[in-house]
């Protein structure tokens, strides 16, 4: 089995720095291209934040009374939560289903999940009219008939669960061993509680759109929406693990110790096979969704073609390519397909929230995001990347801390 690290031509893996990577890597000066761009984006973000909280929502967005939810909900929230599903899928696979061989993928996945959810809440602060009142549904006046109450509760709880699940890494970095060992003992119940919470809010994000059969296009509206959102989140999570693993193993290869490197391939092939399975199942139940509502005739309309593009191009195709990639052991193909699956999830969530929502409104009244909205989303993602880099280059994520050989 070829053991090289795929298409990225890497010099002989640099031996780990002597102090086990806990020291800061040799820095090539502050003005690396990534830092410059990230700095600019963060400045832009700061300006947009100022505009948002002085001029109100309308100052920087095209949100309107016809389309109250735009890119922040469609992309940052819906897609962010779906792509952060890697956390519970990997943790469940390793701890609950006994797939010890993917052990190396747990910490990066949990980190991605934690950052993903942190960004979702961060984005929510911008989208919600009164961010300081976010705890109101739980403390002041709960509206239990709303699906969003259930989503809010689960996202808040799951953010804490993810934080606790993720906490061993910083604790090892800080050296607080006693607390770290206690956290390690909590891993199993946290994972179980995490999977329960994830099932709930991944499906409930879909259930939120059950209340608007009149506005969401019948091809995307179905009583199965919660099931669709949950199953597609599993596929999204695993695809994101592959995609994020590829990126981090090449960008932060100095952090990766040989053991992780070795397991990385097993993770990619194992997850690719699992994702292919889930995607094919998802394709099946989506076709059932069309059949149950007898919407076959709608496939012949423009929205029907857009639906076919989403289903054939971004669900069936990746499932097929993953299968080929696993059988022929083609790493490059699997990485490309992982990206394709991630884009598929982005497309599906944007379809449900924006593109096929209010499908009966005349084109002139349809929502088009303003560049400032997209700018803010880019700013939020950049903040996430910077945090990711800060954590990965310091804490034992991609490698084990030698002091804790008994590691998880």
């Amino acid at each position, binding site marked *: 089995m070829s053991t090289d690290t795929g298409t990225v031509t890497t010099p002989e893996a640099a031996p780990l720095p002597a102090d086990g990577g806990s020291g800061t890597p040799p820095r090539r000066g502050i003005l690396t291209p990534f830092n410059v761009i990230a700095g600019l984006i963060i400045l832009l973000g700061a300006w947009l934040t100022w505009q948002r909280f002085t001029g109100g929502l309308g100052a920087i967005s095209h949100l309107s009374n016809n389309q109250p939810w735009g890119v922040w909900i469609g992309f940052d929230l819906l897609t962010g939560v779906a792509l952060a599903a890697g956390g519970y899928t990997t943790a469940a696979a390793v701890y609950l289903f006994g797939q010890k061989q993917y052990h190396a993928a747990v910490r990066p996945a949990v980190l991605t999940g934690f950052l993903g959810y942190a960004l979702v809440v961060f984005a929510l602060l911008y989208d919600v009219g009164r961010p300081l009142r976010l705890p109101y549904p739980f403390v002041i006046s709960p509206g239990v008939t709303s699906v969003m109450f259930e989503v809010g509760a689960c996202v808040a709880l799951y953010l804490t669960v993810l934080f606790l699940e993720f906490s061993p890494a910083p604790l090892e970095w800080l050296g607080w061993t006693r607390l770290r060992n206690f956290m390690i003992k909590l891993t199993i119940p946290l994972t179980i509680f995490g999977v329960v919470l994830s099932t709930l809010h991944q499906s409930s994000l879909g259930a939120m759109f059950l209340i608007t059969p009149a506005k969401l296009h019948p091809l995307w509206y179905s009583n199965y929406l919660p099931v669709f959102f949950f199953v597609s989140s599993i596929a999204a999570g695993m695809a994101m693990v592959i995609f994020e693993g590829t990126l981090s193993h090449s960008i932060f290869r100095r952090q990766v110790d040989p053991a992780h490197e070795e397991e990385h391939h097993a993770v990619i092939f194992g997850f690719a096979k699992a994702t292919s399975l889930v995607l094919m199942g998802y394709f099946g139940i989506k076709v059932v969704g069309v059949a149950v509502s007898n919407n076959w005739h709608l496939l012949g309309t423009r929205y029907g*073609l857009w639906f076919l593009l989403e289903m054939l191009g971004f669900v069936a195709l990746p499932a097929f390519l993953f299968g080929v990639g696993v059988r022929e052991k083609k790493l490059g193909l699997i990485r490309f397909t992982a990206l394709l699956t991630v884009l598929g999830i982005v497309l599906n969530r944007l379809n449900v929230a924006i593109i096929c929502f209010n499908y009966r409104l005349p084109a002139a009244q349809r929502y088009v995001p303003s560049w400032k909205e997209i700018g803010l989303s880019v700013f939020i993602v950049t903040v996430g990347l910077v945090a990711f880099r800060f954590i990965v280059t310091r804490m034992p994520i991609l490698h084990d801390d030698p002091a804790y050989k008994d590691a998880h």
Partner: protein
Amino acid sequence: MAVEKADEKRQVRWLGIVALLVVAAVLGLGFLILDARAQRKPAEPRTDLISLEYPVTPGHPERAPSVFLHQPHADLDTTSILAGEGCRSCHPAREDGALSFRFMRLNDELPRPEMVDLYHDRCIGCHTGPAAQAGRRGPDGCGQCHVRRPEVAAAQANVVMDLGLHARHVKAFDGKCEPCHHVFDEATQKLVYMKGKESSCRDCHGATVVDARPTLRTACHAACVNCHLEHPHSGPTSCVGCHDLARFLAYKRPDPVPRLERGQPDVVLVHAAVEDIPQMEQPSVPFDHRSHERDVNTCRVCHHEKLLACRECHTLAGEERGGHVPLAVAYHAQGVDHSCVGCHETRKAAVDCAGCHSFLPHFALAPVFCQRCHSGPPPAELAATGGTMPSAAAYLGPRSLAPLTFTGDQFPDSVTIDRLADKYAPAVFPHRKVVDKLRAGIAASPLATHFHAEDDLACTGCHHHSPVGARPPACSNCHGQPFQPVNMNAPGLYGAFHQQCLGCHERMHKPTDCTYCHAARSDQAVARADQP
């Protein structure tokens, strides 16, 4: 190891490209089909389209009916293609020299195979023969005529020989009826003319062939088109000439339309069949037949089946031949426009009448109106005369409008409505001017004059739900606060004024903007000043 990686990369690229191409092809094809379907323009209406189809015999697979456009073929008349025969190349001549309007045959009864061959031989023969030689080859493939989704659609308006057009034809034949009207003489099995029996073609000719009587379509074409062909420039000979409604209505008609003299009485005493007279409860009705003729454009409006008296088919109890419609229902049926009451109801929608009548409940047959019509001799008297009916003219009602019964201060010139004055100044209601306008409308229509005999009836248009009199109750007596549960139907005073006045203005096409009735009181009045 490097080689293996290279061709793996190549394979991956190939696989990706092929997959994407397939997806792109499927979607591209889809968009093309959708665009084509969106581009398809709606079928063009043609008055000269004849859809040729043989009655479908079950179990026999049929091609789509073939589309035949008559006008392009008629235009070939002067060309060599029809070899000088003109219309006769498709319409053979009958014994009397006139054209038969059945294709290549004189009657309809042809079994299916012969009919099919008849059309195919003649049409395709001409298309590939003479037409081809003249360089205008016609369609000869099956699908070219039997078009499943034709771009043309039949749009023939079925037109009616109205009295105006009929009068023009009478003048053309200077009073003789024989050219068109005929009766089938059982004895001689021939069509003969019988004075006094002239009637509408529809009395005998129906939609289908009945014991050798051709259909209305064949009969009309045979009679009208042949006659127009014989006398050039006498009338339209092409389909569009008659079947295009706008063109048909635009033909000149004498004004005023002279009366169609067919021996009908001026005034008729309407009553049940002689033997049923003893069962009649209401007095008979003197009916001014002459004046009614002016209000309708064909006799068929009332004589909707046969040109006979109503009682011939509708007996008191209702007979099979009268569609089980009893005589009383025939005269008073609501919701149809060929009964007396039904027809009067449709007239109430006229602009001059809608003001009041749109508020009054429809078809309310208040007893007070019965005497309006039933003013003829009672059944007992009719029975006594033993058959010879007294002349009805004496019983007709008054023709002119009685002068107003209210005069002087009983009839104010104008009324100032100021109870609700707030944002707008009080409204001055020109009472006399409005009543005079309404009276003029009533006087203009004999129907209205007859029914509004006691003129103060017009007052109940506004002073409704109260006895007519010099001091009608004020609006505010009944209309006060709105939405009182005791009588949810009565609007409040504010709503009552506007619903009544604005409603009437709207239906009688009078101005409806606020300042027409009352000037705005606040500063907006200035801004209003410049409005036309």
